[in-house]
């Protein structure tokens, strides 16, 4: 079953087209990595998919339900109520974590499930504590974000996204804001999620990680998908000129 | 609930009726910073020559006196807005437009004097030329000396006319030597001299003579007449002069006693 379907997505900023006709399908349990140089449009694609940015043309579906449909090349969004429903299908982990600094770790994770999804408090707390123990943060539930390291904050933000019980998770360069020695702990968590067949789309600069964890790799440049396919093929034996050039910088 | 409401309504009407039964309340507007005419007394209540004269007038007329301290800068606005029934506080009537307001008879001459300190070398009005002279903003002395006033020419002869928020500050500046003299009403001047003693004196000749009176709204000519009649009774029985003496006013200025 397809969790996410994007077709012919187009996006302009100030008349400059940053996404040209991008299509992307993610099926249940699939892990897709998007790589490419900065300014290639990969983050914009993620922001369009998570409804933080509006696309100009194309369509977007979650679980077969339409969030954006294409009407003669123009993107038409569903009603706010429908979008609100669809938003619970996915979670997003930001590059800069974006935890709420005035909330404790536990409240960061539990408020939205109780407030937005109206779930039972005891169940939400149990879920949150379970997630924290999986993240190795059981003893930090009463800490405030500023008291945590970057890696710990990012793990809390992953727990926050997971507490909403999403069908899929997006990661927007989840290790880019971290010191190099802290990236490992985050990559380990994501690997763990992949092992549990969590559906994920990951924008990343960690090539080895993308190769190891993904089922599918997409290389973007200049707002188009230049090359995509099996991770080992793309990363070890790229065929396209631009892919070769980009990857050579990482070796 | 309805009973309670009815009871409250009855009480309110009773209160209004009581207030009405007490008779006319006469609200006099005063500058509470203008001794000896109107100021806050030692006991914290308002007093002064004008306040006490008004109390006597109200006694005669059977009115209840209410003293309303006002902002002298906005006195006519406040009168228009019916915050009080009159302005009675050493008010120079010469500057009030008789077309727009009802003005009582003058009850006192208000000579405008030059008050100075010993050693200033000021003996006559001509000596003030080129000197720094202080005045309270908006008083008749200020209006007279400013452009368009009756003594504007005299004012123009000063080195500088310095305007203060009140005479208390102006007098302090005179004591400190920041200014050479004050242009001031004779009543206020005599009050200051009485308080601070022999180092201070007034130039004998006034630079202008104004008159004090009471200002009412245009529509209140009847009220003005009543106050004037009662006031004349106080002139007849000597209260007019005896109160002036009590407050240290120069009885030579009491124009109605002549």
């Amino acid at each position, binding site marked *: 079953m397809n969790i996410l379907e994007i077709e012919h997505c187009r996006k302009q900023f100030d008349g400059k087209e940053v996404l040209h006709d991008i299509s992307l399908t993610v099926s249940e349990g699939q892990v897709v990595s998007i790589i490419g140089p900065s300014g290639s449009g990969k983050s914009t694609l993620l922001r369009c998919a998570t409804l933080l940015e509006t696309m100009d043309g194309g369509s977007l579906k979650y679980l077969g339900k339409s969030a954006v449909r294409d009407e003669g090349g123009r993107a038409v969004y569903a009603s706010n109520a429908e979008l609100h429903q669809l938003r619970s299908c996915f979670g997003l982990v930001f590059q800069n974590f974006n*935890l709420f600094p005035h909330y404790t770790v536990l409240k960061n994770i539990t408020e939205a499930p109780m407030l*937005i999804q109206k779930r039972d408090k005891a169940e939400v707390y149990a879920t949150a504590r379970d997630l924290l123990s999986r993240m190795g943060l059981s003893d930090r539930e009463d800490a405030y974000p*500023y008291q945590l390291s970057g890696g710990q904050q990012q793990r809390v933000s992953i727990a926050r996204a997971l507490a909403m019980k999403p069908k899929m998770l997006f990661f927007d360069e989840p290790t880019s804001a971290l010191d190099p020695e802290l990236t490992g702990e985050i990559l380990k968590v994501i690997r763990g999620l992949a092992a549990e067949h969590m559906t994920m789309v990951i924008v990343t600069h960690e090539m080895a990680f993308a190769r190891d964890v993904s089922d599918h790799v997409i290389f973007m440049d200049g707002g188009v998908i230049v090359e995509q396919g099996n991770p080992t093929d793309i990363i070890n034996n790229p065929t396209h000129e631009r892919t070769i050039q980009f990857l050579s910088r990482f070796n | 609930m309805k009973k309670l409401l009815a009871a409250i309504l009855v009480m309110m009407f009773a209160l209004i009726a009581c207030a009405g039964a007490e008779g006319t309340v006469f609200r006099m507007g005063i500058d509470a910073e*203008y001794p000896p005419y109107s100021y806050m007394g030692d006991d*914290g209540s308002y007093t002064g020559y004008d306040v006490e004269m008004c109390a006597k007038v109200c006694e005669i007329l059977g009115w209840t006196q209410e003293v309303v301290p006002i902002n002298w800068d*906005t006195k006519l606005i*406040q009168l*228009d807005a019916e915050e009080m029934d009159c302005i009675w506080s050493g008010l120079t009537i010469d500057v009030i437009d008789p077309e727009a307001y009802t003005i009582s008879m003058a009850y006192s001459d208000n000579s405008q004097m030059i008050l100075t300190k010993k050693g200033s070398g000021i003996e006559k009005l001509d000596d003030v030329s080129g000197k720094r002279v202080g005045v309270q903003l908006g008083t008749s002395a200020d209006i007279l000396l400013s452009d368009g006033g009756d003594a504007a020419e005299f004012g123009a002869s000063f080195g500088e006319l310095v305007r203060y928020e009140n005479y208390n500050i102006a*007098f302090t500046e005179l004591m400190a030597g920041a200014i050479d003299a004050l242009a001031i009403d004779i009543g206020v001047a005599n009050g200051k001299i009485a308080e601070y003693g022999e180092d201070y004196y007034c130039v004998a000749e006034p630079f202008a003579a104004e008159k004090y009176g009471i200002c009412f709204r245009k529509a209140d000519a009847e009220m003005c007449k009543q106050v004037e009649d009662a006031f004349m009774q106080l002139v007849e029985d000597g209260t007019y002069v005896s109160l002036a003496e009590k407050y240290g006013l120069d009885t030579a200025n009491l124009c109605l006693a002549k």
Partner: protein
Amino acid sequence: MTLTAMIVKMSEGLGRTCAIFFLTLLFSLPLGLLVALMRMSKNRVVSAITSACISILRGTPLMLQLIAVAYGPFYLFGYTLLVKEKLLAIIIAFSLNYAAYFAEIYRGGIESMPVGQYEAAHVLGYSKGQTFMRIILPQVVKRILPSVTNEVITLVKDTSMAFTLAYMEMFSIGKQIANSQSSFLPFVIAGVFYYLMNSIVAFAMSRCEKALSYYR
């Protein structure tokens, strides 16, 4: 008049001074938030009108605004309520004036919030109202507290402006005593009163800052 008598007399006005102070805060703080939101409105007309009002309120003296509120309606429409109820006129003028200043402080605080906070809440499904009330506003309050403290201290001193409408608050009474007694002592007493009030304000605000210092 003895020193004690002066203090007693001026204390009578202190109640009125406090009434101006507390009522102004009570109305201007929420009003300022509303004005800030209108100022940041996407509706250009609302934003422009609000912006013009803020500019006038901040660009003219409070003294003029007091006179305009009390006597403007009277001269224009013969409306006398604000002339008779001095405190009401004073509270309206003060609240509008301070709301304008608070609005700009709120706006600065709101605009300084990182966009990531809005986006995180948005993705989690918070509505705009929930985002503002639960995520943004609590953090804004912490950020703007020092600027608000400054304004509140200014407000304590500004209460003396009520003299413009001949409202007998503490400083007006002090000036009357000063003139009748030819004494500067009432000004000293007034200074002590204001200083004490502001010490209490500073203490209260530092307690607030401390209470909000549990996070960064």
